[in-house]
């Protein structure tokens, strides 16, 4: 059974079997506006919590998306290379950004659940 967590920086993670699928929330994609490019990481890249994992580019600006926990990239969402607007239309499903193998599952305890995140964005 997958559990979904949220960060204060508007990322979501769906964790199943030690692997997290990560994306940005619907609120975040709305703030960013129409995305035109997503700079995706290579599989095998090791990230520490807070490192820039992905850069999403809208018509107007580039924004960093941070690694919400420590881990290693196992896969990027290659579909976004040809269709970055998937992040706008399906931020929490088909518009996921990357998958990572968790290095330290206890870090999940510091993240928010959906109710807490909704309260956070008010």
């Amino acid at each position: 059974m997958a559990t979904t967590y949220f960060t204060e920086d508007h990322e979501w993670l769906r964790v199943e079997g030690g692997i997290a699928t990560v994306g940005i929330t619907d609120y975040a994609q709305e703030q960013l506006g129409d995305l035109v490019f997503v700079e995706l990481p290579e599989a095998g890249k090791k990230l520490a919590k807070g490192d820039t994992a992905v850069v999403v580019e809208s018509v107007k600006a580039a924004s960093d998306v941070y690694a919400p926990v420590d881990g290693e990239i196992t896969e990027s969402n290659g579909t976004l290379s040809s269709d970055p607007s998937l992040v706008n239309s399906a931020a929490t499903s088909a518009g996921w950004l990357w998958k990572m193998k968790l290095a330290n599952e206890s870090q999940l305890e510091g993240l928010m659940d959906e109710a807490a995140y909704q309260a956070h964005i008010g």
Partner: protein
Amino acid sequence: MTGDDTTHLPLEDMHIAAGARFGAFAGWSMPLTYPAGVMKEHLHTREHAGLFDISHMKLFEVSGPGAVSLLNRACPLDAGALELSQSKLTFFLNEAGGITDDLIVTRLGDTRFMVVANAGNAVADEKHLRALANDFDVKVDALDRVFLAIQGPEAWAVLSRAGIETGSLLFMHGIELGKNGEPRKNWFMSRSGYTGEDGFELGLPEADARDLVAKLLEDERMLWIGLAARDSLRLEAGLCLHGQDITPETDPASAALMWAVPKDIRATGAFIGADALRAVLERGPAQKRVGLKPEGRQPVRAGVALFDADGNPAGHVTSGGFGPSAGHPVAMGYVSTPLAKPGTRVFADVRGTKIPVDISSLPFTPHRYRKG
């Protein structure tokens, strides 16, 4: 900048009602996007008509027997050669020939001109104009107007339906015209804009503006357009943003804007910065403003450094983003003069990755001005 220093648009309540998202620009709280979003707003302007609130820009009326002389001193311009209703892009230069602002000057009468200045420089511009005016028999009036831009291939049709006839007015001409065609001293309308499309700019009192906006928005061809799309539209059109593509450190020759300076004025004009500009023209500018077309889909943004094929510094990007109409990233910047030829390849360093960028002619989308 603190919240207290922010200036608000007179029509802010109308933007709030339209669902605008606001952001700070040049000391103003400006609508950045509306619910349609920057991509749709941009494309709607190119296909139909867009309504922009540009009241952050400042209108000045310069009038009196010394008006021509003042403008000829303040700008590399032959103000006396302007025909009635003719508009011209010009500049305020500093003594070093650097551009302190770009302006549109329109002749309203024998000794009366309208000057439109950029938001960020409006205060300095007014001070500068007033100081210069002391030497001439001239009056400088800062006008309190709402300023609207109506841009796009259907702009004239929407205005016509709202009772504003634009028919005989051509690109880069401006007049004092009100509803139903009668002249009104407090209304200024020019066929101009900053999107590359046919369009109009209207300066008018707030109450009239509220009526006009309400009428314009009844037309489904018309949509509010925010500052974000204004920026992508002007970049695709190859138009400079002061403070970004042109600054007090940039002269008109380096900026490839000498077309705005009449030939005889280059040789004999007594405008501020004339000697410095002549010196630049004599030796040739070291860098030139060019269009930049990055390969692939990744935008290359302002501030990014450019390198030649051997890895030597070649210039920098001053504006960059994605061109919704062009369908690819678009940018503008400066490169060393020998490289400033369309087709030359340079490389942009984006977060450590070298992205190939071709020098491109401007604009990226063809201008569709109504020149007659």
